């Protein structure tokens, strides 16, 4: 079976700021991701995730209404998202937030503002994580 690559990723970008969603989309598109959807809040993201199997969700922590952290916790409680990578993208740079996010099941954590170089590093990490998950799944099958 061939390894999963960047161009295979289906991405969802969730942030209440339109310009942040556009920045992330622009950068990950230039990295080779072609399937990219956007959501402005958790309700919209949840609805989109019901109709599409995303491999990676770029998720803001602080948003009006439900927080991204809350959504992450909920998704990690559902087996259908076991192979979905969640990358928290937040302006919160304090260690306690990063630790909390990783404990809740985030695959990685990016501090805003985002740049293409930082996203490249994290997208590479996501692809490696997905490949590991797929290998584990094959071994246990």
């Amino acid at each position, binding site marked *: 079976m061939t390894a999963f690559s960047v161009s295979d990723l289906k991405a969802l970008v969730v942030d209440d700021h*339109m*310009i942040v969603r556009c*920045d992330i989309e622009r950068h990950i598109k230039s990295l080779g991701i072609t399937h990219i959807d956007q959501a402005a809040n958790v309700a919209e993201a949840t609805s989109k995730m019901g109709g599409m199997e995303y491999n990676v969700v770029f998720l803001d922590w602080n*948003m009006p209404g439900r927080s991204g952290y809350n959504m992450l916790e909920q998704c990690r409680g559902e087996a259908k998202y076991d192979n979905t990578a969640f990358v928290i993208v937040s*302006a*919160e*740079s*304090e260690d306690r937030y990063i630790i909390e996010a990783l404990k809740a099941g985030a695959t990685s954590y990016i501090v805003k*503002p985002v740049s293409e170089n930082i996203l490249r590093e994290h997208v590479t990490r996501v692809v490696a994580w997905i490949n590991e998950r797929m290998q584990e799944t094959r071994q246990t099958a």
Partner: protein
Amino acid sequence: MTTPAADTLESMNTYVSDIVGKAVTGTFDTMFGREVAHTGKPTGQASRDGQISSHVSLTQGAALNVDFSFHFDAGLLHRIAEETYPEQARKIPMQMICEDMACAIANVVGSRVKAFLNGRGYDLSMDIPAVGEIDAARDAAKQEHSSLSFRCVPEGQDNAVRVNIHLQEKRA
């Protein structure tokens, strides 16, 4: 209240201003590839015309407030929006895009200051940034203010960005 690290509002104001200066220039560079330079205090009389404003507050219970008001030259944000988000600029009202930019910048700068202060022993939380000017009517026992001005380097435009910082400590 007792401030950690033996801070006074005056000393706090000094290093908060320093962080804001660096955070604003860094954010413009990373987000928009645009150079703005901290030039010190605003010069001349500030006009609210042709400006887009946002604000954000850090609070530690009822004891400490650190408020930030950001004022951006609307022309500068329009130009950046047209260059950086051309597709959105064709579909979404320019004012809406610029207000989103103003709040996104406030979010990054406010979070940067919060992280620094909490690293010094404070326990501040930050609200979600909003458009417009902050309600500065306070009944503080002690207050400090400062204003920073930024020049847009490519255009040579002074006061293209202004940030007002307002620190307020309430004694028990």
